[in-house]
């Protein structure tokens, strides 16, 4: 009885121990995770940390160079660049997560259904996936954003739609492998319903490569959000966003050249962290790859 009760706690301890070992052995994972944790904290505490309001304009302090009072200077409307950078963090994180969540919400069920049911349904869905993968991603996102209406949430829905075929294809191919497994056949022979088999047996066992893909896609979503906001299709003024800040900085490049560095570096570091985490998870999940890396 007590063994059953302590099982989850023991499992959690074992998991935490493995997690700690992973972080100690993989510097890239530790740094990436640490950076993202700090960024999330910054995003949550933006109102407390930011020295100024991100939208307050001061026409007596336009395009100031970095210095006391305004650590990173001010933009062409006299707004504090550091504060806008800090307030841009939650925007970027929200946008990346939203796009990937929508991609998963569409791609996962479609991929599982296609892989599990097979036959005509699979052929139809696979053809649709192939076609959607032929659309250049950003161009499709621009088109869908134009249809849904310009704005951050709509443009990220568009990016999610662009992500979904890739995720669907990945989960479909995993499902094809997992559904051959003996335990799936056993569940079927016991009369388990299709939905129970998919939810309890297929999904948990097919989801590993999706976790890697999702982490890498967060970086792509971040870059696409910055691009769309730079183009004016994403975040609308006066809301702060790293991409939109770069658009303003570009317009004032000769008067205030320092302004294009902070948002660009923020985007670069965050994308590096998402990618680093994704690659590390991939390496951690794949024992074959781990051996290969040791050998070469």
């Amino acid at each position, binding site marked *: 009885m007590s063994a059953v009760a302590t099982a989850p706690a023991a499992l959690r301890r074992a998991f935490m121990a493995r997690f700690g070992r992973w972080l100690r052995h993989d510097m890239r994972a530790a740094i990436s995770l640490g950076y993202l944790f700090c960024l999330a904290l910054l995003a949550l505490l933006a109102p407390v940390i930011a020295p100024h309001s991100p939208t307050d304009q001061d026409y007596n302090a336009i395009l100031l160079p970095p210095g006391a009072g305004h650590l990173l200077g001010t933009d062409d409307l006299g707004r504090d660049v550091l504060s806008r950078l800090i307030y841009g963090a939650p925007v970027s994180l929200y946008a990346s997560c939203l796009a990937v969540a929508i991609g998963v919400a569409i791609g996962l069920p479609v991929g599982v259904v296609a892989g599990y049911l097979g036959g005509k349904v699979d052929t139809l869905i696979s053809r649709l996936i192939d076609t959607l993968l*032929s*659309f250049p991603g*950003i*161009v499709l996102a621009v088109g869908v954003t134009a249809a849904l209406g310009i704005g951050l949430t709509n443009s990220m829905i568009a990016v999610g739609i662009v992500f979904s075929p890739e995720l669907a294809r990945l989960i479909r191919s995993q499902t094809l492998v997992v559904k051959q497994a003996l335990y799936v056949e056993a569940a079927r022979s016991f009369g388990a319903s299709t939905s129970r088999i998919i939810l309890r047996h297929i999904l948990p066992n097919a989801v590993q490569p999706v976790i890697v893909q999702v982490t890498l896609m967060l970086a792509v979503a971040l870059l696409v959000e910055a691009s769309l906001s*730079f*183009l004016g299709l994403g975040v609308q003024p006066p809301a702060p966003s790293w991409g939109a800040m770069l658009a303003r900085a570009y317009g004032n490049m000769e008067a205030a050249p320092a302004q294009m560095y902070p948002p660009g570096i923020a985007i670069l570091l965050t*994308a590096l962290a998402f990618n680093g985490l994704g690659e590390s998870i991939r390496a951690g999940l794949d024992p074959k790859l781990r051996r290969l890396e040791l050998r070469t």
Partner: protein
Amino acid sequence: MSGVGRDGAIHMVWAARLRWAAQRVLQIVPVIIVATFLVFGMLQLVPGDPAVTLAGDSATPQRIEQIRALYGLDRPFLAQYGTWLLHAAHGDLSRSILSGEPVRVAIMDRLPNTLLIVAGSLTLSLVIGIPMGVAAATRAGTRIDGAITGLTSFGVAVPSFWLAMLLVSVFALGLHWFPATGAVGIGDDFAGAVRHAVLPSIALCASGVATVARQLRSALVDVLSSQYVRTLQAKGLSPASILWKHGLKNVSVPLLTVIGLLVNRLLGATVVIEAVFAIPGTGSLVVNAALGKDFPVVQGVVLTMVIMVVVTNLLVDALYTVLDPRVSRS
């Protein structure tokens, strides 16, 4: 007798290739039809009455009715789609709402500018990425490999439009080596067109270089650690001749796959790069159309790009069969 036999065999190989080619061309027809359906269906995502959206802000009721009649929005969806598809098949992609210009003309005017920077950055991606991949794979595990892998991480993560801004500030505004913005028609002034395309191509190629280097490295590491390479080493072949004669031959197929993928990605990424450099290409065309709710133009550009990607993939597949005859046999 033996001559007849050989001719017969060659004939059969060519017949198989032709049959395969015909099948492959037929396979892209449904893809393109589904693509046209999706492109046209995008308009259905517009919330509310598309005619009101298309007519723009502060349009008179007459203008809205005019738009509705002009684009056939009062008819059922499938009938609209059928008419649109029929016109599109004849090269008629309707007219721009903002400028009244035929969409096909607008696209054809701007396409060369876009293709020039896509071709430029694809070339740079291969010219820089292949040596990097080979260097990393042949020195796998060393510091050089680590440095190249680190560089590729930056290549994938750097926002291309920010890199473009940095290039403009250094090489255009600072050193005055290249023009900061604009484009010159490649037919009017070839040297000028290339000069204008240099910075956009470099900005665009960062992720391409990284992708080529990474894929080539992993494919080449696999080949170089395979059984038959070990046999060749045992036979006493020099590492250089193993690499050039056997290694690179075996990674040509994965490399082709990467090229197909890159064309798709570069075509997409030009959208932002053209905005930075104020290049009148299809990318800036689609962005301005999206900002101005000019749907016929949006649809036209998206369709053109999909068709270009599909045709590129077809060419890539055709090259597979030349490089690897097993593909057409299976």
